[in-house]
């Protein structure tokens, strides 16, 4: 279970970093930057994670790049999710009305300053809940890493190993299910708490 948690935590850090960068590209004033961002999102959103794992692990290894299973696993999951993160952040930025940024610019803020101090703090509130669903999706997607050829000993892989040794299929998978539901349940509760903390009080 801790392998699963660690996988998700590292991949989430990658996804947030890359996703923010791509979202910034997509809302940038330059149309070429927007196009590059769009290409990135459409590519990684439409490719199956399993195929991405094959490319980043077996593919690079055969090409002579010695990648570690951990690096390939977290990078794949992170890059895959970053496309979704970019979309969430972008719609968050769009949810802040244009007048806000125009007001900031006319007050003498530079564009990056206006983004950082005016738009992003407001956008943060609207993206909490979709980001939470992405974390839950990552927990579920991390199960693919273990049973694919990367064979990291995460929750599902461990259950599979126990099953193949003892043939206690129902017991092994029942406890794995409990593990996954605990993880996703905890995240759901945390997100709900965050949401109500940052909700606009009326």
């Amino acid at each position: 279970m801790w392998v699963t948690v660690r996988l998700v935590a590292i991949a989430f850090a990658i996804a947030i970093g890359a996703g923010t960068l791509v979202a910034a590209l997509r809302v940038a004033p330059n149309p070429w930057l927007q196009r590059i961002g769009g290409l990135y999102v459409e590519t990684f959103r439409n490719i199956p994670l399993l195929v991405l794992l094959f490319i980043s692990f077996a593919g690079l290894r055969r090409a002579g790049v010695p990648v570690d299973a951990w690096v390939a696993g977290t990078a794949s999951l992170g890059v895959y999710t970053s496309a979704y993160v970019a979309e969430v952040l972008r719609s968050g930025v769009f949810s802040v009305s244009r007048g806000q940024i125009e007001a900031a610019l006319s007050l003498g803020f530079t564009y990056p300053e206006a983004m950082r101090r005016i738009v992003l703090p407001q956008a943060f509130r609207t993206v909490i809940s979709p980001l939470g669903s992405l974390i839950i999706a990552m927990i579920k997607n991390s199960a693919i890493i273990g049973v694919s050829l990367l064979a990291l000993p995460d929750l599902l892989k461990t259950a599979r190993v126990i099953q193949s040794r003892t043939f206690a299929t129902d017991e092994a998978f029942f406890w794995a299910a409990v593990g996954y539901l605990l993880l996703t349940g905890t995240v759901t509760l945390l997100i709900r708490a965050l949401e109500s903390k940052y909700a606009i009080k009326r």
Partner: protein
Amino acid sequence: MSYLFDPGNWEWLVTGNNARFIIEGFLVNLEIALIAIAFSLAFGLLLALARLSTFKPLSVLAGAWIDVFRNLPLIFLILYLFLGLPAPWRDAYEDAVPGFFPEALQSGRVLAALLGLVLYNSAVLAEIMRAGILSLDRGQAEAAAALGMTYRQSLRLVVLPQGLRRMVPATVSQLITLNKDTTLVSIIAIQEIVRHGRILTSFNFFGGVQAPVLQVFIFIGALFIVVNLLLSRLSRRLEIRERTRTAGAPKVRVAGVEDQVAA
């Protein structure tokens, strides 16, 4: 980079039947996706209605069912059903499959794959449908009731047509996810695109060329991108058509608006 674009590393694509072999595998994925989509939509609607039922125990039960299957990894469900389904079930499936189905779908393992896909996706779709129906103004159902419609009539004629229309974007993006997730059935050795890719790269196949892993899987990824982009284009078309139809007069397309809807 030079490795990636070296023509020698792309030679496998035009050698023998390699490209055809991959695309045949892809067709199996699409067939699995189609069957799973049909069942998931139907079963998801039933779940959503059960969840919204005024009969408390049914609604609570449906809610628990949805929450459990929505929060378990799909690959977990597929693997468990593959290992845990009783053998007679599989035999029953093998007997029941229509003969015109392709060979890859004749195996009893496909039952585990389909069941897993439907259990997971119907739960997710049920939640989307529920949100679509709940987003309707309460007055709509009340007005229908006031006009003397029965519950069924108001559902069929008033609530569902409007609610379902609102959930088209969310549903299509879930169906794209389902399409990608069909690659997961390769874990239980169903002969689809990922399996075919691995066969090409693992030993000398057609014509004695061992295909490089990187290029084969980039090609597979590109196939998925093409099909999924077509799917999302289609859904945008649908949305815009619906909007112009329901608004009566043709509306000017506002740049960027549909992108936000799709997000």
